[in-house]
Structures are given as C-alpha cells and as structure tokens.
C-alpha cells in the first residue's frame, strides 16, 4: 500500500476563524444595542440605521449568517480535510468562498441599515444578495464535494453526512423562500402572498434553525468532541438513526411557528405532531455526544474545550426538548409572540452555537499555531462569564414572556381585559434591563476569548500547510466481515446527497403544494380589495422600518385577543400581502385591526413621539419619516409587479395610479389640518413617507370590518376546515 504525503490547508480555516471572532463581536454588540433599546428607547438616536427595526435584522443576520455561518465553514474546512485525508479540493474556490461570504455579510449589513429588506424574517436580504448567497453556496458545495470525492478514506464519517444534508437543504430552502419579483436594484416583492408566504417563510425559517444552526453544528460536534475527549463515538447505530430521522422529521415542523394563525388547521396539526416526534432524533445527537464522554468526565473538569462542548450539548438538549413543548398548541398559546421565544432561541444561540464555536476555536487555534492555549485560566473565566451571562439572559426572558402572556389573558370578573397592552410592557421592562446585563456578560466573555486567542497566536507559529500522510484509497475494498447495511451509502457521497434531498423534500412538498393548489385552504373574502397605490408605498415604509419585528398582524382566535384587537384574522384577508407581515413577536400591540382605530393625527403625533400619545411606551420615534419623500416614480413598477404576482389591478392602472395616490395624500393631509397639523415648518407634507404610512396603517384590517356580517361568518367556518 502506497503511503501518500499531502498538506492540509490551514490558511482558509484561519481566515474563517478570524471572521468568526470579528462578526461574533459585531453581532453580539448589535444584540446588546437592541436589548438596551427595549428599556432605554433614546438609544435609537432618532436615526434610521440605529433604530430597533433596522438593528434587529442586523443582529440576527450577523449572528446567524456571519458568526455561525463562518463558524460552520471554519469547522468544516478544518474537519473535512482531516476526515477525508486530503487537502481541500481547490484553494481558489476556498478563497472565493471566503471572500464571497464576507462580501455578502458586509453588503447585507449595509443594505439592512439603509432599510433595504424583503421583510421576511431571517431572509431579509434583497434579491441581488440572495443571488450572491446562492452562488457562493454553490462554490462551497463544489469545493466540499470535490474534497469528498478525492478522499483517501473509503467511507464518509457521520460528521460529513451532516455537512452534506446541510448543504443540500440550505440550498433548497434559500432558493424556494427567496423567489421574489424585483422592481428595482434593491427592492423586490415576495412571489407568495399571505398564508402561502407565511408557510413558505416558516418552512424556511424553522429549517434555517435546523439546517444552518443545528445539523452543521452536530457535524462539528461529531468531529471535535471525540477528538478533544479522545474517546470513541458512543453509538454508530444511534448516529444512523438519529441522522436520518432528524433530517426527515425536521422539515415538517415549520408550521409550529404559525399555530392558531390563519394557516389551515391540518398544516398546523402536522407542525405539532412532527415537532413532538422530533424530540428523540434531536436527543439522539445529545446522547451520542454526552455518552461519548463516558470515562472522560475527569478531563471535562480540566479541559476548557470540553467544558464548552458539554454546556453546548446540554443547551442543545434543553432547547430541543423545549421546542417541541412550545409546539403544543396550549403551550404555544402562552409562549407565542412573547419573550419566551426569545429566551428559547437564545438557549440555542448562546448555549449551543456560541459555546460550541468557542470550544472549536479553543481547540483549533493552538493546533494550527502548533502551540498550547495561552491561558487555560482565562478560558475558564470565559466559560463562567458566558454561562452566567446565558442564565442572566434567559431567566428574565422566560419570566417576562410568561408574565406578559398571563397579563394579556387576564380578564376582570366583569369580563373586561384587566391590563392595557402598555401596562403589560412597562411591567416587564425591568426584566429587559436584567437581560441586557446577561448579554453584556456574554459579550465580555467573548472579549476575554479574543484576548486569549490573540496571545495564543502570538506565542505560536502558524502552520499554513500542515503535512499529513495516508495510504491512497484502494478502488475495490472487500469488506472483511458482515457489515452494516448503511456502510453501503457511506462510500457513495452522491447517492447520499440525493437521498438526503429526497428525505428533506418530502415534508416540504406535502405541506406546501396543497396550500398552494387547494382553493378551500384559503377561503376568499369578496370585500378584501387590493391596496391603493399610496397604501402600497406605506406598506413599503412599514417593511423598510421593520415594524413587523415588534408588531404582529395576526389576531389569534382567543377571547383576550378578540376583545383587545377585534375579530380574529382570516386566511382570505391576506391574499394581496406580498410579503405577509404577520410578525412573530409582540413587543408592541397587534396591528391587524389598527385601521380606523385612531385618527390620522394620532398616528402622525405617535410616529413623531410615541410617548406623547402613549406615555411609557418603549417605541422609538421616527422623525425621518417626516423628511423622506415617497418615490412616486416607482408607483407604476409597483403596480405592474403586483399584477404580475396576481393582484387584480386593471390593465393600464399603473399609468394613472399616481393620480389616485395624490388624491389620497390630500385627503389625509386635510384630515390632519382639521386637527391643527399643518405640515413640517410650514412646508407641504403630502409626499412624505409618514402620509403613506398613515394610509397603510388606516387600511390594515378595514376590508373585513366593512364586510357584511354573514360573509365573515362564512369565511370563519371555512377556516375551521370542516
């Protein structure tokens, strides 16, 4: 057997590692910023890019796609070469992958700050960046499969199964969810509307958690944990069963983000049951991790890498048990739209993704610099700071979420809602303050790590090309004894790719296709009409400022919500909503029935200074909306695009749409004048963004209010799915 010499490429891994550190800090800072904004609204600065609605997507995108994304690539580029006993397929592709991804991140941050967003959570980036992501992802795929194909190992290890499933599923999710119709260089409308858009979005959103935050990190765990503990993987069978079960079941669970909404009942039920069935496959990963540490627990006390990994896996176990519980409708009725969800995701993000990333960094940096960690003690300090940070973060959030939900649902004996919405917010503001302390501690821990790693790098010497040797792969390997059936596919990465794709495609197909094709899923309501041109512009403002990040537009069929907001939402109300704006969090009240609830002047004053209309409100002010003009040149394009997407505007309407727009502007301006509001510094305000936004706000939910009673009752029955 010929032994071949080759070199591992550590340089790409190093670059990704640096990117992880940089974007990690940036993402966490953005998170801290918005955490403070929730109890100290002045930090929004009255400046658009620093306002919550724009900073929040910057935070989520930075930690998910920049911090964890680079973490994935760092871990994969390090482990894949070693598991395949070969160098990465192409150094050029590695370089393109790295720089392409960083460019996407920078472009993403800049566009989000300047208000260019598609308005779909965790998929906010606009269409040119979406295309760039797809291209870079393909580059990554070619590089990964090239490496796997030229491997010197006969079989591919479980970590690589997870990498393959990750790659193919993320590609599928990203492409399907990002289908949109561009109207300008940085503006597009989602192909889907309302209920369908919501289903696609949360099929994507849920599985972004699954296949961007979970499966690749499970793969990393399968490599770095046994390496760091020097113990064999506990159970190969468990790997097989939990891998296939996990990827097959995960994809179905998306609708649990839409329980009690206008999504058809059957889809909600599928979301519930598949979420419950997900417990065991998820825990399979945790068990395989923790049991691998059998006989090595003494090392866990000593070795910082293992400490981080153990807490990461434990947090993974907790989050993946909590998730299914939150998918039960009766629990979801309490948790959804509250900070409970925020607590839940941060157990995963800070605990599982954060700590696992830290563990990997503490492992690979000394290895690649051919030295030992500068200070185990500092790493220990980081560990404890981070752990206390997580606890201080999540406990107030669980508390806040539960308390607020209970307050929302409390009625007096006379049958009135006991608390105004604002009272439930001011009640939990102290919890927000404690949470930001937890987050700050976690960030301090990250800084300690950066210092520790810089010192480590300084004391070592970087090995850019690490020498290794392995025998060449023999073409025909005869198994010595009876082998597991699964060994067959472990020699065939391409078949693995196809099978994974089939496994993850089934759930999506079963849930999406009927929602698109079967008419009865979305009963139409004849009084629901397309938006006027000015309302469309207002809707764009609403999306641009990220209103959906704090305000839902979905009244669930609960006694308290109907009492507080009005009739519960029906599927047919959203048929012209490209994209849907149901939201996932109620930091502020629901807006699904806000139309006509307040006078125009109320909105005008409220957007300028929310505290003047609602004392104690934590909403930021939006002074720039009184300066910005609506781009009426875009109106024809908008109407055209909406018609393309199926909104029934008459042919040729785009040419006189601006006439209607001006009429409606004037109507609102007149109404404002009636309430002694006559423009900013005496200048006309007709074309300002605020007027468009008021037009949109006054429209939301109005169609169904004007509908004859019998018809809404009928559509309500339709939603029941009988």
């Amino acid at each position, binding site marked *: 057997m010929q032994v071949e010499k080759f070199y591992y490429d550590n340089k790409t891994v190093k670059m990704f590692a640096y990117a992880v550190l940089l974007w990690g800090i940036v993402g966490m800072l953005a998170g801290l910023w918005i955490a403070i904004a929730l109890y100290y609204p002045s930090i929004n600065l009255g400046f658009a890019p620093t306002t919550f609605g724009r900073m929040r997507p910057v935070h989520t995108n930075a930690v998910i796609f920049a911090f964890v994304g680079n973490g994935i690539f760092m871990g994969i580029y390090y482990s894949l070469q070693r598991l395949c006993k070969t160098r990465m397929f192409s150094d050029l592709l590695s370089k393109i992958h790295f720089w392409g991804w960083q460019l996407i991140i920078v472009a993403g941050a800049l566009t989000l700050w300047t208000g260019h967003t598609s308005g779909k959570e965790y998929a906010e980036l606009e269409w040119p960046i979406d295309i760039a992501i797809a291209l870079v992802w393909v580059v990554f795929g070619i590089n990964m499969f090239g490496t796997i194909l030229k491997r010197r190992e006969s079989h591919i290890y479980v970590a690589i199964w997870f990498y393959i499933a990750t790659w193919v599923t993320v590609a599928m999710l990203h492409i399907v969810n990002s289908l949109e119709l561009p109207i300008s260089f940085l503006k597009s409308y989602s192909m889907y509307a309302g209920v369908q858009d919501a289903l696609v979005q949360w099929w994507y959103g849920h599985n972004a958690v699954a296949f961007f935050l979970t499966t690749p990190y499970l793969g990393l765990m399968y490599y770095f944990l046994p390496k760091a503990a020097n113990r*064999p993987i506990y159970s190969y069978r468990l790997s097989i069963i939990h891998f296939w079960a996990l990827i097959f079941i995960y994809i179905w669970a998306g609708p649990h983000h839409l329980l009690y909404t206008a999504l058809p009942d059957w889809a909600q039920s599928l979301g519930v049951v598949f979420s419950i069935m997900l417990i*065991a496959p998820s825990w399979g990963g945790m068990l395989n991790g923790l049991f691998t540490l059998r006989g090595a627990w003494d090392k866990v006390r000593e070795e910082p890498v293992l400490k981080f990994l153990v807490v990461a896996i434990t947090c993974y176990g907790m989050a993946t048990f909590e998730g299914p519980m939150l998918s039960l*409708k009766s629990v979801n009725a309490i948790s959804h739209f509250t900070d409970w969800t925020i607590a839940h995701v941060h157990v995963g993000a800070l605990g599982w993704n954060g700590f696992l990333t830290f563990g990997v960094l503490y492992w690979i940096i000394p290895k690649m610099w051919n030295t030992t960690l500068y200070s185990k003690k500092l790493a220990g300090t980081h560990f404890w700071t981070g752990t206390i940070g997580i606890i201080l973060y999540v406990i107030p959030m669980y508390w806040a979420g539960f308390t607020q939900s209970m307050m929302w649902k409390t009625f007096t*004996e006379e049958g*009135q809602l006991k608390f105004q919405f604002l009272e439930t917010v001011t009640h939990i503001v102290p919890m927000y303050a404690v949470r930001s302390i937890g987050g700050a501690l976690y960030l301090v821990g990250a800084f300690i790590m950066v210092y520790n790693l810089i010192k480590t790098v300084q004391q070592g010497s970087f090995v850019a090309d690490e020498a290794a040797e392995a025998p060449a792969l023999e073409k025909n390997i005869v198994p010595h004894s009876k082998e597991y059936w699964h060994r067959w596919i472990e020699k065939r990465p391409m078949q693995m790719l196809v099978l994974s794709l089939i496994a993850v495609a089934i759930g999506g197909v079963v849930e999406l296709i009927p929602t698109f094709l079967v008419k009865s899923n979305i009963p139409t309501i004849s009084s629901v009409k397309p938006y006027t041109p000015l309302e469309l512009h207002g809707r764009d403002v609403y999306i641009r400022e990220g209103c959906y990040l704090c305000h839902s537009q979905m009244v*669930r069929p*609960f006694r308290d919500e109907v009492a507080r907001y009005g009739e*519960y939402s029906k599927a047919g109300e959203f048929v012209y909503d490209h994209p849907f704006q149901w939201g996932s969090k109620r930091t502020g009240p629901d807006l699904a029935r806000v139309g006509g609830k307040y006078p125009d002047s109320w909105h005008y004053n409220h957007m300028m200074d929310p505290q003047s209309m609602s004392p104690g409100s934590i909403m930021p002010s939006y002074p720039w909306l009184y300066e910005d003009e609506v781009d009426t040149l875009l109106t024809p394009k908008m109407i055209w695009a909406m018609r393309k997407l199926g909104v029934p505007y008459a042919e040729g309407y785009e040419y006189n749409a601006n006439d209607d727009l001006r009429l409606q502007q004037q109507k609102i301006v007149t109404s404002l004048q009636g*309430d002694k509001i006559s423009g900013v510094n005496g200048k006309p305000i007709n074309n300002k963004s605020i007027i468009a936004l008021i037009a949109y706000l006054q429209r939301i939910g109005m169609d169904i209010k004007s509908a004859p009673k019998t018809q809404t009752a009928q559509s309500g029955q339709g939603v029941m799915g009988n």
Partner: protein
Amino acid sequence: MLLIANIFKKACKIWLPLLLLCITAVPAMAEGPTPPSSLSNPFVTLMVIIILFLAIIIFMMGRLVIGSGGLYLEKWKKESEEAKKNSTAPVVTTIVLLLLSVQVFAQDKAAPAAATDNFGGISSTAYYLLCSVVFVELLLIAVLLYMLRVFAGIQKKKKAIVAATNTAAVKTSVPELSWWDRFNALKPIHQEVNIDLGHDYDGIRELDNKLPPWWLYGFFLTIIFAGVYLYSHYVSHTAMSGIEEYEASVKQADIEKTEYLKKSANNIDETTVKLLTADADIAAGKAVFQVSCFPCHGKNGEGIVGPNLTDDYWIHGGSIQDIFKTLKYGWADKGMKSWKDDFSPVQLAQIASYVKSLRGTNPANAKAPQGTLYTEAGNAAPATTDSTKTKKAS
C-alpha cells in the same frame, strides 16, 4: 408539569381508558370507564399525568429489577447452596407483595363504589379510581425500591465474598453496572473493545452501543402521540379545532360574566346608567381620564384630536346615557375607540360622570365647538344638524 399536561390534554380521552386498561386491568373495567365529561377537569388531567408519570417510573424500575434479579439469580445458582436461598427470598416477597397490592387495590375500589358524592366536579367513582391507581402505583414503586435494595445488598455481599477469595480475577468478571448504565443499556467501559467497529476517521473510533431503551421507547411514544393527535382531530373529531376552542371559551366566559353581573353592582348599561355625583366617583373617573383619554381630549378636556368636552356641543349626544354609550361602544369611524373591554360598567359611568362635570370649566386652548348644542332637558335636538359635516376632519 404544565407542559406534560398539555401533551395529554387533547388526547386524554383515548389515553385514560388505555391507561386504566394497562394498570388496573379487570377491576378497572368492572367499574366502567370514567364519564368523558369529567376528562376536561383539571384535577383529572393532573391525576392522569401523575399516573402516567408513575407508570413510566414503574416500567423503568421494573426493567432494572428484572435485569438485576435475573442476573444475580443465575450467577447465584452456580455459587453455594446457601446463597441461593437468600436470593430467592426477595423474589418470593415480591410476588407476595404484588398479589397483596392487587388485593389492596381491589378493596380500595370496592368501598367507594356505592358512594355518590361529588368530588371537585367529578364523580366519586372517578375520584377514587384515580386516587387508587396512584396509590397502587406508589405501592409498586415502594416494592420495586425494596427489591432493588435487596439485590444491591446481594451485590455488595457477593463482592465482599469474592473479593475475599480472589482479588485479582474479580475486577474483570464482576460487572460494574450502575443503575444509570442499565437505564441506558450502557456496556462497561472495559468491554468496549468488543463493540469497537474498527472504524477510524482521523483517529476517531466508533462503538456499536445499543440504542438507549428509554430513548427508543420515547421515540415510539411520540409517534403514537402523533397518531392519536391526528386521529382525534381528523377522524374521531373528539379534539377541538382552534376556532372551536375559541367559541367554547367565549361561551364559557359569557356564562361566568352574566352570573357575576347578576349579583354585582356592575350591572349597568346605557339605559340604566345614572349620573354619579359622589366625589369618590368623580375622582375615579378623573384618574382614568388622565391616563387614557387625555392624548385625544386634552388634560382638562379642552380637546386636541378629539372634540372639546367642556362646552355644550356634542357630536354623539351629551346626556349621561349618550356619553356612556359613546365610551362603551366607541365611534370607530371617527377615531373614538370602544372602551368596554378596558373598563367595567361602573368605571365607564364614573368616566362619563367626570366628563359631565367638566362642563363650563373653560380650559385654556379649548378647541372650537363641534356637533350640536345640547341642553340638559332637550334630548330631542340631535337630528337637527348633520354632525358628520362639522367633524369630517377627524
């Protein structure tokens, strides 16, 4: 507990009979199934959860006992005759105890069967049935615990004996399985060589451990849950859809509200409301006004976005009944929201009375009059002017 409660809430109609079958077998059937109506009772739900929880514990402990008992019995046979007697004793005890427990259980249920009292909204039969199931389960757990202790005692004794005779050989031959290892079907670490699959990926080896039994059964359980859930929603229709849940909750709330209002002073509406003049009432009305009304009507009722409330002109009528009605139902098209879900009827009367008390206070920055002139006696005036015309701006 709440979480688990919710898992079974929907499916409990199917779970309960199943559970009774499993645990109480024939005696339970003799009692007849619990009436389904009591299944939504929170007490019943709680008890069912406790029962299930205990059943799982029993199942797991049972496995442990069977495993350890069998293991030691077998080994003991090969050892001295004397030791054999010792090991069989607990088994006999167990069987006796098991029989006993069944008897106790049967008695428990025989007694209350005749009673017809109501216990917290459920029939006494169901109450005793649930209690006795829990009792029997606790008893079983006690027995199992006792057995485990006995077996553990044997293990210690045996270890001591063997250690005394042959120290060197023992270490490899005596299994060091803790209850945890057995619970997870873990192999002792020194036997790992036997299950090493020989895979080597960059130094990572893989073992062929069995799936932890609780994990596997848990997985099956969730699949069964999924089946039951879908069945109860779409085949048997015993579970409610979201909309049905909503309708039921509103109906229930209405009943409770009417009951409450019947015996409370709050039974006021726009036809029965009277002007309140007591200082306490006016002060209470003012307090609410200062928090909820001032953004539109001004601190002193001078009017900002909303109309001036201190003059004699009213858009929707100025009598106490009219104001009460306006507060209660709102005028959505003009920006006045309905406050009936925020404030009780008494509170609405207090606010309306406070508003009435503002008349003629002439605050600064008062908004121009809107609506029609209202005089206290002249309720007949409203139709004379088109109020919407003057108020069109808002």
